[in-house]
């Protein structure tokens, strides 16, 4: 006697077989007909109906989906954020260094212009350090004796005289700035030729003492260096502009510097200049006058 299958199970197997068969028929028909067949047309019809429904549904669930999507992307977003921040830092650093390079380039170009104008032989130097105290008015350069530097050489930048070399090692040189209270330079009024001595005064304007006891110099007159015997400061380097009288006598004047001594980054050390005192005829040389140095005020008080 033949064993029969329970009705539900038989029905289930029949259903399974029918559905499998239906699937295979659909696959076969779609495979054979391709894009132009009836199944493809039904597929297009289904998409036509479903499309607007999906669009409406999308409008509703988009914010929710975005929320879950952002959670799912949290890891990658963090990584991307970190990468972008790193890129931004790099770009900022590049911008800073680029701006710095452009500024330095412009500065050097102007310094070269001044060197060409004055006919000097110079070597470029970078200010690498300043003294730790506010009292000492000097800077340290990245060039020294190996680059031909000697004590006494003038140091200029694109605006004018910066100071002179006071100490030299093989690779470095210390420059006493024009603002140093111990600095004293022979200068002249560019227009009138009045001679005098310029003294640094810390953060305050330079003190100018004219040799002529009755000299009259108007504010705004340009002060330049003057070549004296025994110095290696070239002639005609711009120093500053006469600001006002200092006291009742017209001999004593205040001079505002051209150089911004707080922003020194690159300078030129004058190695040689065309009319050094030793090259001048004896009769054209002016001896350095022996004058008492003006009293140097307390630089601490000046700074404050």
């Amino acid at each position: 006697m033949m064993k029969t299958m329970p009705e539900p199970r038989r029905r289930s197997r029949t259903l399974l077989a029918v559905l499998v068969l239906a699937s295979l028929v659909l696959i076969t028909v779609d495979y054979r007909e391709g894009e132009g067949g009836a199944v493809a047309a039904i597929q297009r019809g289904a998409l036509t109906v479903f499309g607007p429904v999906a669009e409406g549904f999308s409008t509703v669930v988009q914010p929710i989906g975005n929320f879950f999507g952002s959670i799912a992307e949290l890891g990658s977003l963090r990584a991307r954020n970190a990468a972008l921040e790193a890129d931004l830092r790099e770009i900022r650093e590049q911008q800073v260094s680029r701006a710095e390079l452009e500024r330095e380039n412009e500065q050097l170009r102007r310094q070269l212009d001044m060197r060409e104008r004055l006919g000097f032989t110079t070597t470029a130097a970078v200010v690498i350090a300043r003294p730790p105290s506010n009292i000492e008015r000097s800077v340290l350069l990245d060039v020294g004796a190996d680059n031909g530097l000697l004590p006494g050489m003038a140091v200029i930048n694109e605006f004018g005289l910066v100071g002179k070399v006071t100490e030299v090692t093989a690779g470095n040189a210390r420059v006493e700035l024009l603002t140093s209270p111990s600095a004293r330079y022979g200068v002249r009024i560019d227009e009138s030729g009045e001679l005098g001595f310029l003294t640094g005064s810390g953060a305050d304007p330079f003190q100018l003492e004219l040799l002529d006891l009755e000299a009259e110099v108007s504010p705004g007159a340009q002060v330049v260096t003057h070549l004296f015997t025994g110095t290696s400061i070239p002639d005609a380097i711009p120093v500053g502009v006469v600001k006002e009288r200092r006291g009742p006598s017209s001999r004593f004047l205040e001079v505002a510097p051209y150089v911004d001594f707080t922003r020194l980054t690159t300078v030129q050390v004058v190695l040689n200049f065309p009319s050094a005192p030793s090259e001048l005829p004896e009769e054209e040389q002016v001896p350095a006058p022996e004058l008492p140095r003006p009293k140097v005020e307390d630089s601490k008080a000046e700074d404050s």
Partner: protein
Amino acid sequence: MSARLLALGVVLLTALLLQSVVTPMIAIGGWGPDIVLAAVVAFALIDGAETGARFGFVAGLGSDLLSGGPHLVGLMALVFLLVGEGAGRLRPYLSGSEPVTAVAVSAVAGIVAFGLFGGMSLLLDIRSFTFLLIVQGALASAAWTAVTVPLAMVPVRAISRRFTGGETAATGSSVAGRQW
């Protein structure tokens, strides 16, 4: 019966809409969940093989019709039909087991579904499937299905209880359904 069919239709439509709209937003590494597959497996685990096969066939057909490109109509219907039937047949063996077993079954269902689909696509040369892609997809499908089936079982169980008609009604109750 008609109310049950309507409820199943709503579930299917919702699953298709979620699959079309939401899934792309939550895909990880290009692999998103298959909500329709989750619904099929959920129905199969709660209502049994017959409901799983029927729902799987219709859901797969819906997915086929809404899939464009080189996709062959009937392929997903066959895959979901077989997965629904297979998961439903495992339902009695889930009796008394921990929920983790149902999660494991879901993961296997995910692997089988993607494996069958990828394998048949490879055989029919209708998609640029490779063996590596099938392995990756099967693993992703396993993970997503294991996560989404327990979530899908919540509304499916409610519908199954509200609109009886599956094997749950015929046999009294689903042990697996009670588990979840």
